[in-house]
């Protein structure tokens, strides 16, 4: 009787999880294996893939070194710039803001993150383009200003696109901070500045870590922002991948780059988790 009930229980569990398991296998695990196989293959003369086992694609990675450097430089730089803007904002929302308006203000920060990144990036293309700010500058006599298609434009787009994602985890870590600790610090004679650096900042580090890791990881695979605001001059790994797959049709080389990108993401993730482990006490963040 008990054994029969156990079998039935296991069957129900299996039935519940089967569709998702099948989906994960067919559209995540299998594609990854295929990508790995392609990365060790050769490009067919007419484009696409030809079976082989060679390390040539990986040996050829330096041919796209610029894309890697741009990504590895601008993704962390963009994340840090986000942090510089996000921390004071999160601090204000969690500590200083009037509780009556707090939820509304937080909503106003989250909502842009869930609206089309394409449209939000396009807005900056519009503003930085020749008919936007440069046009206005020309009116007051400053001619020939180039804003679009520069690293600065890409960084601006990054801060704009990912600011909400940086603010949220920091806000959560500051919001759950025990106010009595701040009072205790003040009672013991600490000045507000030393309370901030001695108590508030260290306790919000998990949120800072989560934010920096999340934004950096997402930026490593970014395509739209460098494409629209960098205009082919400031390109990321994502742009190199689109070019290799959809233009020059060098699938094996593209697969090798994609595999390398995943490896970079995993390394960043592991470093972030190692540091988070040290600062400890991370809490799951609601992104919605």
């Amino acid at each position, binding site marked *: 009787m008990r054994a029969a009930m156990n079998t039935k229980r296991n069957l129900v*569990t*299996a*039935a*519940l*999880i089967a*569709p*998702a398991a099948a*989906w*994960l296998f067919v*559209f*995540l*695990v299998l*594609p990854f294996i*295929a*990508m790995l196989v392609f990365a060790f293959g050769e490009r067919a003369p007419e484009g696409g*893939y030809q079976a082989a086992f060679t390390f040539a694609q990986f040996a050829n990675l330096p041919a796209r070194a610029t894309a890697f450097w741009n990504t590895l430089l601008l993704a962390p730089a963009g994340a840090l710039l986000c942090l510089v*803007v996000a921390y*004071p*904002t999160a601090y*204000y929302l969690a500590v*200083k803001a009037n509780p009556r308006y707090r939820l509304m203000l937080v*909503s*106003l920060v*989250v909502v*842009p993150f*869930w*609206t*089309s*990144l*394409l*449209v*939000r990036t*396009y*807005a900056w*293309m*519009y*503003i930085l*383009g020749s*008919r*936007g700010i440069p*046009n206005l500058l020309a009116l007051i006599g400053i001619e020939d200003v180039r804003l679009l298609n520069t690293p600065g434009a890409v960084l601006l787009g990054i801060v*704009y696109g990912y*600011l909400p994602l940086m603010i949220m985890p920091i806000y959560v870590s500051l919001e759950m901070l025990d106010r009595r600790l701040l009072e205790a610090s003040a009672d013991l004679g600490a000045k507000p500045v030393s309370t901030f650096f001695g108590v508030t900042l260290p306790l919000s580090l998990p949120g800072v870590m989560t934010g920096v890791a999340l934004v950096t990881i*997402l930026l490593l*695979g*970014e*395509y739209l922002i460098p494409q629209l605001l960098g205009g082919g001059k400031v390109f990321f790994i*994502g742009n190199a*991948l689109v070019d290799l*797959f*959809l233009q020059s049709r060098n*699938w094996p080389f*593209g*697969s090798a780059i*994609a595999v390398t*990108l*995943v490896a970079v*993401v995993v390394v960043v993730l592991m470093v972030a988790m190692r540091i988070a482990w040290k600062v400890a006490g991370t809490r799951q963040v*609601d992104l*919605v």
Partner: protein
Amino acid sequence: MRAFISSVYLFLYAPIALVVLFSFNAGRSASEFTGFSTAWYGKALGNTFLVSALQNSLMIAFTSAALAAVFGTMAALGMERLGARMRALFDALFAAAIVVPGVVIGIATLVALVAVFSFLNPALAILWPGDRPPQLGLGYGSIIAAHGLFSMALVTMIVKARIASLGRDIVEASSDLYATPLTTFRLIVLPQILPSILAGFLLAFTFSFDDFIIAFFVAGSKTTLPIYVFASIRRGVTPEINAIATLVLVASLLLILTARILMREKRSKSGE
């Protein structure tokens, strides 16, 4: 401090507001507002390519989000009943589905599907009884599959968090009162996790509706709205794009606000 915060909000909303404003511009100018007009909306909605791209996007977003809501919820319920090891495995797979960059998901799906089709299509040609065997290829199905992957992980994450916050006592009370597991689920568990499932569905819908990069790789000859917008932007910025962008903004705004209200309800009910 106040001034800084105001400028952050200005920074977040001014660019969007500008696009919306110029979508109502009577003239073609991108820097001079010459009068109010809805002409660009008329032009956009009269564009058959655009309307069919919009229909494709809505269909793909609805199908992938609905599948994700059903299968993701089932997975969240099933994972509760798994042993620690299997649960860790699924946790890792779902996390991978969320963390791996969209561009890589797009490429991997493209590569795998093309490889599979190159086996299946000749086989079908031999086995097919009729004269014209069907040709499997990229299209709606592959976009739905690739979007469904991320969406399912998203729904599972949200619903799992909700299940974890449910009191076990109420479920036990139900079974003590001789309710069958199915009745307990229908009367006790489902009503409590329903707002999370709906929120997950809406977020998944929003994700699919807004996604460009994954669809760009696996769409084959099909066009979604973001792909259409991207292609138009490359042809040059026009006021018509402002109108389309505004429509996309309004759509995602409505979706995310509804999702937030549903999640809020959940939070206040659980007393957090």
